[in-house]
């Protein structure tokens, strides 16, 4: 136990920096991926069939491809040279967009048909009905599963170590391979992840309860 504490104290700087990179990667992923998910969800209700089909194909491919494969594809496959960090953010946000579009779509569908009808009767244009009536309420309905998915994506930032993004897992791995304290360092990394994910999931449950009570 003291060994673990010692390792943490010794490599505190690297580990905390790594966690910082993990968090920024996650935040950039959400900033890119969540609007993408909303866009895809809205597109799946578009009147034009071609738009709907395009959205469905993107979502199915995005959901069917493992995040790790998506990461390698973006990093090695894109014709432009991006930093590993940016490649990781793009790959993870593609996955995020595909998954969250399904979650958001469920939320949008949860908006009562009567309200959409009322908006129609008032003469609101489809765009306004979507933006002012359906989306705000649909997102509210989708909020708990969205938060849950964000926690999963935060965990998925660990994959970025495979393309040498200096996030927490990469740091733990590189320290461990020099001092051979594999167990200690991976345990510390796991605890640091849990330090964020467990409170976040408790918070998510609270939000879900609160929303459930209000409706």
């Amino acid at each position: 136990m003291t060994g673990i504490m010692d390792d943490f104290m010794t490599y505190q700087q690297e580990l905390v920096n790594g966690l910082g990179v993990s968090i920024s990667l996650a935040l950039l992923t959400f900033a890119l991926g969540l609007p993408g998910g909303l866009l895809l969800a809205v597109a799946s209700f578009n009147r034009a069939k071609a738009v709907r089909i395009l959205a469905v194909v993107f979502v199915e491919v995005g959901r069917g491809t493992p995040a790790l494969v998506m990461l390698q594809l973006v990093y090695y496959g894109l014709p432009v040279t991006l930093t590993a960090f940016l490649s990781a953010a793009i790959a993870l946000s593609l996955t995020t967009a595909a998954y969250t579009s399904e979650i958001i779509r469920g939320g949008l569908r949860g908006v009562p048909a009567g309200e959409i009808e009322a908006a129609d009767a008032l003469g609101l244009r489809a765009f306004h009905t979507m933006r002012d009536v359906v989306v705000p309420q649909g997102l509210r309905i989708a909020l708990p599963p969205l938060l849950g998915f964000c926690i999963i994506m935060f965990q998925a930032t660990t994959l970025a170590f495979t393309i040498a993004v200096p996030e927490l897992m990469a740091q733990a791995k590189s320290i461990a391979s020099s001092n051979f304290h594999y167990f200690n360092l991976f345990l510390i990394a796991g605890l640091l992840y849990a330090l964020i994910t467990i409170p976040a999931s408790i918070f998510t449950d609270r939000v879900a309860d609160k929303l459930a009570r209000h409706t």
Partner: protein
Amino acid sequence: MGHGISEAIVDPIQRPDSPAIRLHNVDKRFGEHTVLDQVSLSVDPGQVLALIGPSGAGKSTLLRCINLLERPTGGTITVDGVTIEAGHTVSANELAKLRSRVGMVFQSFNLFPHMTALKNIALPQQRVLGRSKKEAEDRAHALLKRVGLADKAQQYPTRCSGGQQQRIAIARALALDPKVMLFDEPTSALDPEVGLEVLRVMRELADEGMTMAVVTHEMQFARNVSDHLVVMSQGRILEEGDPRQIFANPQQQRTREFLRAVLERE
């Protein structure tokens, strides 16, 4: 805009004596099933039309055809000079033009629960009529006052009673200055006492000269407030005319049975 016959036709000349609503041979079919069968009727400006009849008669469908929430499969619909022919593709502009003339009030209110009463009434004005926020909110306040809910402006719909919600919904529709108001069983979801608040607002509206079409189960309202009564059954008009006359002396056997059944329950 108008590209030949594939689109709806807008009547450019509005005759002052033309009816506010005119339906001509309106049909609504789902496959084999006929909901509306060649229904024709007209409502003059300032008139209050009451539609009554047993459930499943097609009253609500007919009402919803007037603002094209239901697309009729046959016939023509004219509202305040705008004519839509069934079977043709209706452009977004045509639809907007028609709906801007028609306000609608639903049985289940259908207020937007994430907006305050004020915003429910103000936002459609901003979006549909392009009014400024200030203008829209001033009008919303005035209308809330008119329906007796001046103090509810900042309240969310779920914090209001059913009767209050329905009055907010009426204000929301009136805010767009419609030429015609449609009411689809506006009091059916309400307790009788609460329904009276709503009926009082509707009656005031009628007295001020609003053209109204009301699908209702409130026989008092149909008899005392409406100018014209239409009794429907199985997708057809059974009989129509002066409400007091029909209530006193129905011509059709089926109307007699219906009225007896409804009035006995009251």
